[in-house]
């Protein structure tokens, strides 16, 4: 399997920062620097991801999970570190790209599905319009082709194509997530970020969305980073898992190993409390 992403010593600090930010924060303390009050949302995060692989990131609220994917998707600038994205024989130094290059990767080679559908969808336009918008940004301008692609995608994600002209507000939470997934998939991206995509949905709706994600991974060999605090989601989806606490990776390994033989006291507590 080919490497698609490699992240080295990524850090994200919210605030002015000072010399002791990193020394005074971490898993045994908190993520707030006592010296300057900055939030060290992530520090020294390194990992790699292969084509078609699903990597899980778990940890409690505020541990920095979303921070990692937000920076990779250019929603937030990274403070430090380096990230390489490998695509069609080229290497992209993600944290060094200019705005235009970022927009291009975001619109064509990456897909993002947010927990909050308002972040991923334009609620003022129809479901089909949301997908069309992404295809237009990616450079397609052929009306019929865009429309039939949107139809295919909605069918694929099990949203009735008859409803493609309705606005997202008319849809249930589960359907909104499906439209987000359809939109993310529109340009066949090799890399997908999924941030708590099933959190807050009914169990049966969650199950169907998770099935859909597995099918997509199997059919399209899409690499994914799945952010969740739900161990069930991790067990079901992820090949490998990172465990984060106060912005640091405290443990990384094969998912079954993390769940059956956790090494860190914190992970042992998480796993024990989920049983």
């Amino acid at each position, binding site marked *: *399997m080919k490497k698609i992403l490699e992240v080295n010593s990524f850090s994200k600090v919210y605030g002015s920062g000072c010399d002791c930010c990193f020394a005074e924060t971490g898993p045994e303390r908190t993520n707030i620097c006592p010296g300057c009050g900055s939030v060290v949302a992530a520090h020294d995060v390194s990992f*790699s991801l*292969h084509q078609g*692989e699903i990597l899980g990131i778990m940890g409690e609220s505020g541990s920095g999970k979303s921070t990692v994917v937000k920076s990779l998707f250019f929603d937030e600038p990274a403070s430090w570190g380096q990230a390489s994205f490998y695509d069609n024989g080229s290497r992209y130094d993600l944290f060094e790209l200019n705005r235009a290059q970022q927009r291009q990767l975001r619109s064509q080679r990456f897909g993002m599905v947010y927990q909050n559908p308002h972040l991923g969808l334009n609620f003022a336009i129809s479901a089909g319009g949301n997908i069309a918008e992404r295809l237009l940004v990616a450079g397609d301008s052929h009306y019929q082709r865009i429309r039939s692609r949107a139809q295919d995608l909605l069918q694929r994600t099990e949203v009735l194509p008859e409803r493609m002209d309705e606005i997202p507000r008319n849809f249930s939470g589960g359907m909104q997530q499906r439209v987000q997934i359809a939109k993310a998939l529109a340009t066949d991206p090799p890399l997908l970020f999924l941030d708590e995509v099933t959190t807050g949905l009914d169990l049966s709706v969650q*199950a169907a969305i998770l*099935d859909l994600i*597995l099918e997509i991974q*199997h059919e399209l060999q899409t690499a994914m980073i799945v952010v969740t605090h739900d161990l069930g989601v991790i*067990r*079901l989806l992820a*090949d*490998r898992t990172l465990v984060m606490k106060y912005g640091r990776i405290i443990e*990384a*390994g*094969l998912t*079954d*190993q993390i769940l*059956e*033989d956790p*090494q*860190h*006291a914190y992970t*042992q*507590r998480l796993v*024990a409390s989920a049983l």
Partner: protein
Amino acid sequence: MTVAPILRLENFCKNFALHEQDKVIPSSAQVNLSVYPGRLTALIGPTGSGKSSVLNGIYRTYLTSSGRILYRCAAGEEIDLARADDHDILALRRSEIGFVTQFLHFLPRQKTEDVVAQPLYQQGVDKEEARARARATLEALNLPRRLWSLSPTTFSGGEKQRVNLARGLTARPRLLLLDEPTASLDPRTCQRVVAQIKSLKKANIAMLAIFHQMDLVKQLADEVVELSPAAEGVMGGQP
């Protein structure tokens, strides 16, 4: 024996550091064993002697505390599974090493025949071909046909065990790990499993299996390794 082993454990040890209870639980201690192509090594010993921990260590479901797990890959090179990169382990799981665990976490909502064919799908075998092979094994293990299109989540212990076993047998890996594969089966079904395992041996598949019934060990084992309870040394030998 002139055949080279496919797997060698050298002084394998596993213990669990439980931080919350501030305890270290010793599991497997100083395990040495070899597994050969076309032969079955049986792992025996009382409950708690660390048998399952050995298999979990080889498959990397558990991290190894000390010692080496030397595996000779299809490509010829030898790698230490205790230290290999996670991605290499994932690749070996996909194509070379199979594990029939005591309890399988089934994907909910997946049909039995898909559960069994899953490893073949991952190897890129055509869907119909994979399902056909899955059904053949389910047939051989005598799992009633009416169950094939249902999810195994609601099956009885013995039915689940056959699904689990069928999955491992259908995949035909180079090295197959079996953890008490017949524990909840009746004697007749047990004999069907014996026949299947014998045919895997003929296909040159190497196996490391935990058995409790000594008659199965007699029928199937080429090597026997006994683990002793708690943190004492162990010896391997011929039966």
